């Protein structure tokens, strides 16, 4: 056993911490109010080699490990949840499937601009009638004269406005009433492809959440991502990695809420004493500190398993489920410790809670995580 980060991981932590404190945090509150996407931050992260963090150097990536990815997501999210989800989706939903399943040509064409930050990464899975039950996909692709002709729509797709391509899942055949689902790369500038961002969200206001419409879009046959008919299997693998990203976001936001609550409790005096001297407040803070430690431990364990080529589905689900739920609890208690001030935007903790709620929903709801864990333990 070794609980120390490696030299590289420590340096990445230090660098991401400074970057997040100095560049990401200062505008977070305003971006939340203005619903302003932090494009400049991603340009800077591109220059620093962070956008391609875990991908091979031959495609412009930096070849770092999953623990480093988790550290980067945690630090960005500690400063700004919107920046965190954008980055996490970029890497784990956008870049990872291309890296895992893409051909050499597809990686050269599409993974490279993702690594440099020229394009953000996105993945289109969810549809109005296919959320937790991704098998409900209705988008359909038909092979006509060597081209896929795609029709359908996607909803809640992160980053699509800033992406050069969006791989989408679609039905590519029906056999005995069973759907064959595959993933197909769709360049966003294709005729018939449109992206809209109509949502009024609860939180993560500075992130890009879109609806995608695909109307008679034609792409060459070899734009298939991975093997035909394996779309379902592939996105389950993709989501395993993505859950580490969501877990890291949750740890980052919970850390921010805990730090704010601890500092406020020490500063605030009522009944002639610092409220941090009241057991009711102390126990809340002690629970926060403990849950954070446990969530981060699970996060690093899931990431470590992935880095060592071990099976990590169960641990990724546990990490995502536990971290997102303790993140909500921590944010709620942080607001409580702030009293009336906690209800005010100025103190930031209410933003943390609005941002955190998505973590119990995206990339598999808490219920879905429990289903995954139950399956893994043999139910």
């Amino acid at each position, binding site marked *: 056993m070794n609980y120390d980060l490696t030299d590289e991981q420590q*340096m990445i932590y230090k660098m991401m911490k400074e970057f997040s404190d100095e560049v990401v945090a200062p505008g977070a509150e305003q971006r939340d109010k203005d619903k302003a996407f932090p494009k400049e931050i991603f340009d800077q992260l591109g220059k620093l080699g962070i956008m391609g963090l875990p991908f091979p150097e031959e495609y412009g990536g930096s070849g770092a490990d999953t623990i480093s990815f988790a550290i980067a997501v945690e630090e960005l999210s500690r400063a700004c949840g919107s920046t965190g989800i954008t980055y996490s989706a970029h890497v784990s939903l956008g870049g990872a499937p291309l890296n895992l399943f893409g051909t050499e040509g597809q990686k050269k064409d599409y993974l490279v601009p993702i690594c440099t930050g020229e394009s953000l990464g996105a993945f289109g899975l969810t549809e109005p009638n296919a959320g937790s039950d991704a098998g409900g996909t209705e988008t359909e692709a038909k092979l006509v004269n060597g081209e896929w002709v795609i029709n359908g729509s996607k909803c809640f797709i992160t980053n699509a406005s800033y992406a050069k391509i969006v791989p989408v899942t679609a039905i590519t055949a029906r056999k005995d009433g069973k759907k064959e689902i595959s993933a197909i790369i769709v360049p966003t500038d294709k005729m018939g492809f449109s992206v809209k961002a109509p949502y009024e969200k609860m939180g993560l206001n500075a992130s890009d959440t879109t609806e995608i419409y695909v109307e008679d879009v034609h792409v060459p046959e070899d734009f298939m991502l991975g093997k035909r008919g394996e779309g379902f299997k592939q996105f389950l693998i993709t989501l395993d990695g993505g859950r580490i990203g969501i877990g890291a976001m949750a740890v980052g936001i919970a850390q921010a809420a805990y730090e704010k609550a601890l500092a406020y409790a020490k500063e605030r005096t009522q009944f002639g004493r610092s409220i941090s001297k009241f057991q009711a407040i102390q126990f809340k803070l002690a629970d926060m500190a403990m849950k954070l430690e446990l969530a981060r431990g699970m996060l690093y364990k899931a990431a470590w398993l992935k880095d060592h080529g071990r099976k990590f589905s169960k641990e990724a689900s546990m990490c995502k489920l536990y971290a997102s739920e303790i993140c909500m609890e921590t944010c709620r208690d942080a607001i409580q410790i702030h009293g009336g001030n906690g209800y005010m935007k100025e103190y930031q903790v209410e933003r943390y809670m609005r941002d955190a709620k998505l973590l119990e929903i995206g990339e598999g709801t808490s219920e879905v995580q429990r289903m995954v864990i139950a399956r893994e333990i043999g139910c």
Partner: protein
Amino acid sequence: MNILVLLKQTFDTEENIVIENGQISEENVEFIMNPYDEYAVEEAVKIKEEIGAEITAITLGPSRTASALRTALAMGADQAVLIEWDEQEADEWTASNLIAAVVKNRDFDLILGGNMAIDSGSGQVAIRVAEKLGIPHVSTITKLTLNDGTATVERDVEGDVEIVEIQLPFLATTQQGLNEPRYPSLPGIMKAKKKPLKTFSVEELSLENEDVTTATVIIDQYLPAKKQAGQILEGELQDQVSELVQILQNAAKVV
């Protein structure tokens, strides 16, 4: 062009500092590259990007200080030297003797160091090194322009600017305003481990005993007294002024 950068690892003064038995406790302390030294590293890397240079980062301290060197390597330095010193903090005398002993065997055109270390705050080590090497030095620089064999340097003199022409090789200490230190890039971080880092023990430098024996002793260290709450005067301006004069004369006894 060979550039040597002298840097120190210090504790982060923005973190909580605990003193135990007259010593700063290293438990739970965040160690960072001395912020003034970041300007030195950045300037060296900028010169390297503009006209090409081989940068060697040099530090003195316990083995943990290697991480400050790795940061310099990640920012763009090419190689690093660690003079291992595990005893109580070296004073300006021993530190400059040890560093000068390493530097004098190397080729260099320019030596850069921070204006001062934020822990000891003496601002002496780099300048003493220049004296021992017999080269010119210029402190607290805010601009550096290299010409052919000379340099034009702007230095901060208590809010004014002094412009100095200086012959290479020379040593300069860097001040805020010189540049914006970069974040180490991720590829830089990944490459840092593969760059050479040479460690010297004090014995290897074969110095005289008196050169490596500290000339000063720290007798005690303590935290500054907690700031007392200030007093805010109220009422008409006239009354406030006379009350203030009262206090300065009678209570504070400063006028």
